[in-house]
């Protein structure tokens, strides 16, 4: 199978879906030139109408995506960085995130919001926050955070074909990551986890960049005779509770690893669910590994210290074994 970068895999998903369905188009700031390189080259193939550069107006661009979606198109709205979603919050939370329900099922908003999420470039608080937890909190928005080129492509294609609003989070720090991507057409259904590593002692649940943190930790743990089962959720909302609960039923221990501020993090949701639904199978209290509870700092030394590390995961696993 050909090995491709995450960026290249996303680019393939975008161009294949745009070829397949003329209602699919891309809109955002500098999408032609590609601030996120995945959108590069699309304008050459699809032209002005389907690759639309906009002014710096996140609220209007997000809302325009919604308006186009409810009138029959299938927009992909690129808002560049996760933190810029804050400027579009009204349109996403109040409008896209409720309109089908609010209007009694009369409409649908099939659109994708796409951003690079999280830290890793030492860009300070305004460019480095992970934002998944805000959108997981919205009952009518799907949230995807794939960690590999294969999952990125397959899930983005599903997101574009989905009839609901979907937030697709890719990570700046994973853009150059390579992985196998089949040449043949495929999609990955939304809502299913991927078991990255089987293990019998503890279930470690992660998504996006923290999958690699968890895998790194699992190697050290294995050397100590502790076998961690690592689950990549891929899809945060809806999420694959069944796979996680089934794993915890076998291991009896649970560690949730998530790059976000701890309070109401994705990890909080996973941990609460396990505590609620697998309480009697647990041999130890559930553990969360998240960012430290401070704004994102600029200094690389501090940024690294804020983010969940393999050492943090190892320490959490040890707490479940103590």
């Amino acid at each position, binding site marked *: 199978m050909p090995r491709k970068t995450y960026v290249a895999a996303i680019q393939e998903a975008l161009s294949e879906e745009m070829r397949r369905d003329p209602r699919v188009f891309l809109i955002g*700031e500098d999408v032609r030139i590609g601030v996120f390189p995945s959108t590069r080259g699309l304008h050459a193939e699809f032209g002005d109408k389907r690759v639309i550069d906009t002014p710096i107006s996140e609220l209007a661009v997000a809302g325009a995506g919604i308006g186009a979606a409810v009138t029959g198109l299938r927009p992909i709205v690129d808002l560049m960085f996760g*933190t810029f979603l804050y400027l579009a919050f009204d349109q996403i939370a109040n409008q896209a995130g409720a309109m089908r329900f609010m209007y009694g099922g009369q409409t649908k908003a099939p659109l994708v919001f796409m951003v690079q999420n999280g830290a890793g470039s030492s*860009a*300070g*608080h*305004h*460019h480095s926050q992970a934002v998944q937890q805000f959108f997981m909190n919205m009952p009518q928005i799907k949230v995807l955070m794939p960690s590999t080129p294969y999952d990125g492509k397959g899930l983005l294609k599903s997101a574009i074909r989905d009839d609901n609003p979907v937030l697709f989070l890719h990570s700046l720090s994973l853009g150059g990551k390579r992985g196998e991507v089949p040449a043949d057409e495929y999609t990955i259904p939304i809502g299913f986890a991927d078991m990255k590593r089987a293990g019998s002692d503890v279930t470690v649940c992660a998504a996006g960049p923290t999958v690699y943190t968890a895998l790194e930790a699992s190697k050290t743990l294995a050397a100590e005779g502790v076998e961690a089962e690592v689950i990549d959720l891929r899809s945060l909302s809806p999420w694959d509770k069944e796979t996680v609960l089934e794993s915890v039923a076998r291991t009896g221990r649970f560690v949730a690893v998530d790059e976000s501020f701890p309070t109401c993090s994705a990890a909080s949701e996973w941990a609460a669910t396990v505590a609620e639904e697998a309480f009697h199978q647990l041999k130890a209290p559930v553990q969360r590994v998240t960012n430290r509870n401070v704004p994102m700092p*600029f*200094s690389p030394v501090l940024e690294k*210290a804020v983010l969940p590390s393999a050492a943090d995961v190892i320490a959490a696993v040890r707490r479940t074994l103590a």
Partner: protein
Amino acid sequence: MHHQDIPLDVVVDIYTRVLRIRRFEEEVGRLFRQGQLPGFVHLYIGEEAVAAGVCAALTDQDTIISTHRGHGHVIAKGGDIKRMMAELFGKATGYCKGKGGSMHIADFEIGMLGAIGIVGGGLPIAVGAGLSAWYTDSDRVSVCFFGDGAANEGSFHESLNLASTLMLPVIFVCENNHYGEFTPAVKAMNIIDIADRAIGYGVPGVVADGADAFEMYRATRAAVERARGGGGPTLIEAKTHRRGSHAEGEEAFLGGQTYRDEAETAAAQAKDPLLLLHTHLSENNILPAERLETLDAEITQLVSEAVEAARNSPEPEIESLYEDLWV
């Protein structure tokens, strides 16, 4: 370019501010290319006359708010080059103890209320600084720097209208360098002069030549007078030019893609604000050639000392993450 209505000490002061910004930014560019600086760096080279002219018309009590391209604003307001450089290196001795970085330098002691990495994020806060001046019967004015791109954010429109309806002492300084990242301003708005937008909010809109520091000074002085006199906000649009990349390291990032018109860029660069000032000062014998040289040497020396000090400064302690959280 003329300085007839500007005192000579102010003329020299403006020149010094421009020169400081230029030498600082040139060094920052070098350091970035050498891989010594983390994060994103947006240089102000080519736009120095805007910050220098504006800030020379302000007092120490007046406040400014800045953008992702903020180094020039800090220096123009009288910021300490050493603490700035240390911040760019992410060191504990930096203005924000390494927590802010290039896009978030602040010096509240000199009325520099912070650089903001979110485009358009500063305008509402500047309105608030104007509100507090009005509330406390202070004659402070609040200045907000922002780009042409930022003028397309909702915050621009809401802020102008709010400042106008409350008649607040706010000066909105739009640095129209004709690009927002890689998108030409003319493709992001169907008007030529952003100053034209002011009328829609009942605010005077002024266009000034951003390469002419004296013109920037005069436009600001007039706006300051109006604001202090209770006349409310002004929008000053400075036509300016960003000499280099949107962000440093851009060429490699763009992988051969280009977006600027060569001829247009060459024409704009011919109007270099530092060169214009230097020529003006020498031709009018405002400073002797020898003093012009020593001034440059002093500033260059200051910048290299700042780099040396930054390099030798400690990294922030991990425990510092828990400092400055709560009052």
